[in-house]
């Protein structure tokens, strides 16, 4: 059922050696490959068959659900709409990810539109990894979208990573925060060659006492290009912070635009942004510990994207 390429992709994007335990849904080349549900986590196809609905019962604690997507069919652009309904007081981890294996001249792509409704007091950790590989020359595209709605006192921690091989990515993240809710987004994107990635983020702090922290780490190698846009809009007394750092290597190009909009007098919004090469004091420190220049560069990038 899983061939060697599938296994390799699953290992890379979802840290899976074969099929996971508990609830999972594996999608391959636009179709369901295998699904399991658990007592507290239900997965069903949506009405038009364009995606899944994952429903987590209120109070579900310390459970996880894997929903990886693998693609190896030449010429396929797979679009999927997934909904996650996380019940009140639940505390769960969702591991997503998409791996593309391109073996031909034809393009391959995936767009995962993921919508999260996080119930009162619930906590969700969402881990999404994107990766493409293969000897083919076809263009590999990954266009993920996440939409998050946080109810009162809920928390969402989003780890979004694009680790390599993706020629083009249009990444969109949107979130609306209710009272006393917390959103932590960490996005890490590595581009090289002639790859291009755009990340557009809109976070609305609608509830009093809501907090959001968006961290973006970009490494731009070769002739690649990355643009990062983040808007944080405060409608209530709240706290929001955007931290975006880009390391440019070779001829990489980057545009970073953090934007803060305070629509309430008690909103506290901050941002810090930096674009530049690896700092020479960092390189010298690691070289003084016995690392070569190249080893030091790799170690710094590895840490930056960790």
């Amino acid at each position, binding site marked *: 059922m899983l061939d060697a390429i599938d296994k390799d992709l699953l290992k890379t994007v979802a840290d899976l050696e074969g099929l996971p335990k508990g609830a999972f849904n594996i999608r391959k080349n636009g179709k369901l490959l295998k699904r399991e549900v658990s007592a507290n986590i239900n997965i069903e196809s949506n009405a038009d068959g364009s995606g899944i609905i994952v429903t987590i019962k209120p109070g579900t604690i310390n459970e996880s659900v894997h929903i990886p997507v693998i693609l190896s069919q030449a010429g396929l652009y797979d679009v999927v709409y997934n909904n996650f309904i996380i019940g009140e007081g639940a505390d769960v981890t969702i591991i997503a990810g998409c791996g593309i294996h391109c073996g031909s001249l034809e393009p391959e792509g995936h767009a995962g539109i993921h919508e999260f409704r996080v119930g009162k007091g619930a906590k969700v950790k969402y881990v999404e990894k994107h990766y493409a590989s293969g000897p083919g020359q076809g263009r590999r595209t990954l266009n993920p979208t996440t939409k998050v709605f946080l109810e009162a006192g809920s928390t969402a921690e989003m780890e979004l990573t694009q680790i390599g091989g993706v020629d083009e990515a249009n990444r969109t993240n949107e979130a609306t925060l209710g009272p006393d809710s917390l959103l932590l987004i960490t996005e890490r994107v590595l581009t090289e060659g002639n790859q291009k990635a755009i990340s557009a983020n809109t976070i609305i702090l609608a509830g009093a006492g809501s907090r959001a922290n968006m961290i973006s780490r970009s490494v731009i190698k070769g002739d690649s290009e990355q643009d990062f846009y983040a808007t944080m809009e405060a409608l209530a007394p709240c706290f929001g912070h955007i931290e975006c750092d880009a390391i440019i290597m070779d001829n990489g190009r980057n545009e970073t635009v953090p934007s803060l909009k305070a629509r309430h007098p008690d909103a506290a919004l901050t941002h810090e942004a930096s674009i530049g090469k690896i700092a020479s004091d960092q390189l*010298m420190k690691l070289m003084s510990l*016995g*690392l070569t*220049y190249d080893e030091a560069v790799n*170690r710094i990038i590895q840490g*930056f994207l960790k």
Partner: protein
Amino acid sequence: MLELKDLYFSVSGRNIIDGMNYTFEKGKFYSITGPNGSGKTTLAKLIMGINPVSSGSISFQGKEISSLSITERAREGIAYSFQQPARFKGITFRDLLSMAAGTDDEEMLLALLRRVGICSLSFLDNPVDAKLSGGEIKKIELATTIARNPKLAIYDEPDTGIDLWTIQPMVRLLKREQKEHGTTTVVVSHNRAFLEAADIVLMISEGKLVYKGDLKGALPILNDLSVCNYRKCLGDKDVGCYR
């Protein structure tokens, strides 16, 4: 063990290090002092390979090292503690200590922390980033230098940002390293505690070595305005005076 011969470092025609000759002996504790801008840090960086030598030679254990990279000098057994340590995103103290020691074995790292003494165990998984205080990062810097088990350890102003209560333990630590591991120790400092700890005090002014000997002999020179490089210095009343 370390010999400087006719050493020059020039920038835009100005000699920052101006023909220095000196031989450091194995296992001794040296403190390098002198006014701000006299060339102390520059000299330390020349030895580590951070700044390139303009002319002259540096030999370490009989081997000419002035054309070697920082990495090669580190592998020869020279370690360097930066005055303003680098801060990283996503690299922890554990990562740096592992790189320095060449192992990620938990027991060995803990043994290193015990050996250094001044770093709390809770530091270990802290990122070495901008959130660390000046004192904390200097302690980490010192620990990674010691973790190299160097033959020659250079500390550039190790007391910067360190609280008063930690300076004496830090001096004792460097003396213990000197004694137990035979580490040749070079400390660039204005702090009297390090000057008192030194076997030999070296004083630099305008890129030249103007004194080498014990602290007692150095004190009259330290009190003499002639070593001040602040051109129209009015002594203690002048805000620009290093004293």
